[in-house]
């Protein structure tokens, strides 16, 4: 979709390599990554040195993908590989927790019930006591999938597993995943609104006053846009910062940033799920008389 190029900048001193790729517009803003910016001065297609891949302790790749072709369609293999791992992890935990359900929970069942109660409270708080139940699976899966994805990206050394192209990372690191989740959220709140209020759902576009119609319509576009880019940007930025720090100082120094990354990852999952629930709740509740009455 955009012009791309790939860069490998290796620091010969410590034989680290720095893989990166830049958009033209990113290139203009040298303040983001000064070091890599230098590397791109030539905008070069010129190879000066190539460090053997096996020697790389840390490298950074952005925008490089491991392509699979299915029925002529290109997909990002690395995203699916890690997402399958995340899904398998979720399913494994779910199955183990519900294998033997007891009235007095213990161990894994207790833990997963805590998670479920958390999700239910989240949905209940935003959608409302009456309507929240059918939305628990959607909001909950959003939260769990994003949360486990983010943490797997932050905790597991995916990069040690070499794949032919790109590198393994959190599935939420890819714009496709976040846009997919955001569009599903949009569909979900449209569905919720139509199911609850029928065509009267459109009345919300001219509430509280028809003057706001353009802004209300615009909101339907900004919601998925902000949802997807917030998550994508946060996770990608976190991984970039950690990777750059690891590149510069491989020991101990990146740890605080990694811990901060865990924190932001969890927060991003919470924000995404909460906002999805808010949008659904908004669509169900409407801005009309029910609110004031």
């Amino acid at each position: 979709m955009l012009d791309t190029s790939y860069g490998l900048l290796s620091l010969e001193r410590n034989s680290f390599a720095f893989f990166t790729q830049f958009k033209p517009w990113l290139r203009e803003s040298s303040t983001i990554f000064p070091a890599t910016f230098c590397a791109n001065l030539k905008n070069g297609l010129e190879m000066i040195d190539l460090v053997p891949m096996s020697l790389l302790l840390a490298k950074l790749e952005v925008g490089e993908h491991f392509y699979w072709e299915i029925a002529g369609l290109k997909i990002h293999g690395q995203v699916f590989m890690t997402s399958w791992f995340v899904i398998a992890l979720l399913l494994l935990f779910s199955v183990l927790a519900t294998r033997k359900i007891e009235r007095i929970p213990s161990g894994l069942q207790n833990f997963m019930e805590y998670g479920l109660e958390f999700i239910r409270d989240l949905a209940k708080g935003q959608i409302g006591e009456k309507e929240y139940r059918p939305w628990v699976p959607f909001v909950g899966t959003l939260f769990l999938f994003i949360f486990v994805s983010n943490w797997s990206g932050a905790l597991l050394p995916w990069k040690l597993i070499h794949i032919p192209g790109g590198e393994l990372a959190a599935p939420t690191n890819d714009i496709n995943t976040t846009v997919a989740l955001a569009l599903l959220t949009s569909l979900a709140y449209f569905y919720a609104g139509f199911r609850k209020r029928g065509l009267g759902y459109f009345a919300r576009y001219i509430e509280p006053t028809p003057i706001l119609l353009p802004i209300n319509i615009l909101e339907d576009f900004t919601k998925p846009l902000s949802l997807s880019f917030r998550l994508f940007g946060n996770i990608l930025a976190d991984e970039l910062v950690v990777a750059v720090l690891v590149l510069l100082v491989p020991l101990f120094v990146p740890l605080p940033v990694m811990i901060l990354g865990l924190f932001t990852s969890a927060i991003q999952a919470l924000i995404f799920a909460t906002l999805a629930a808010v949008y659904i709740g908004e669509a169900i509740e409407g801005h009309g008389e029910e609110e004031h009455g």
Partner: protein
Amino acid sequence: MSWTLLLAVEEGGGLFDINATLPLMAIQFLILAVVLNKVFYSPLGDAIDERDGYVNSSIVGAKEKLAKAEKIAQQYEQELAESRRQAQAIIAEAQAEAEKVASSQIAAAQQEAQANKEQVQKEIDAQKASAFEVLEGQVASLTQQMLDKLLSAA
């Protein structure tokens, strides 16, 4: 040469490379939501609801039992007070009866004693009277004899 630079070009790719990954990921996510609903949300949610119901019914049952126990305790207290009062009444009654019996017996005894005394008095009086009568007879006869003697002597 401290900086080395490699820039490779590959067709496609990039940060914002949106392709078939998007719909497939969406479908995959929906399937995950459905499956998780089957194996996680539904069973554990049911378990939580069932436990809530159980706890609530237990609380209601416990409250009922507590109310019942309190009622029974109150009833017991009432009965205890009632019994105490009854006991007091019985004691008082018994005491009154005993006093009555005692006083009546005392009165009877006094009456009897009085009667005896009066009878004895009467007997004493009668004997006294008869004794006086006898004495009077003897006095008369003695007086007669003395008179006779005096008269005969003269």
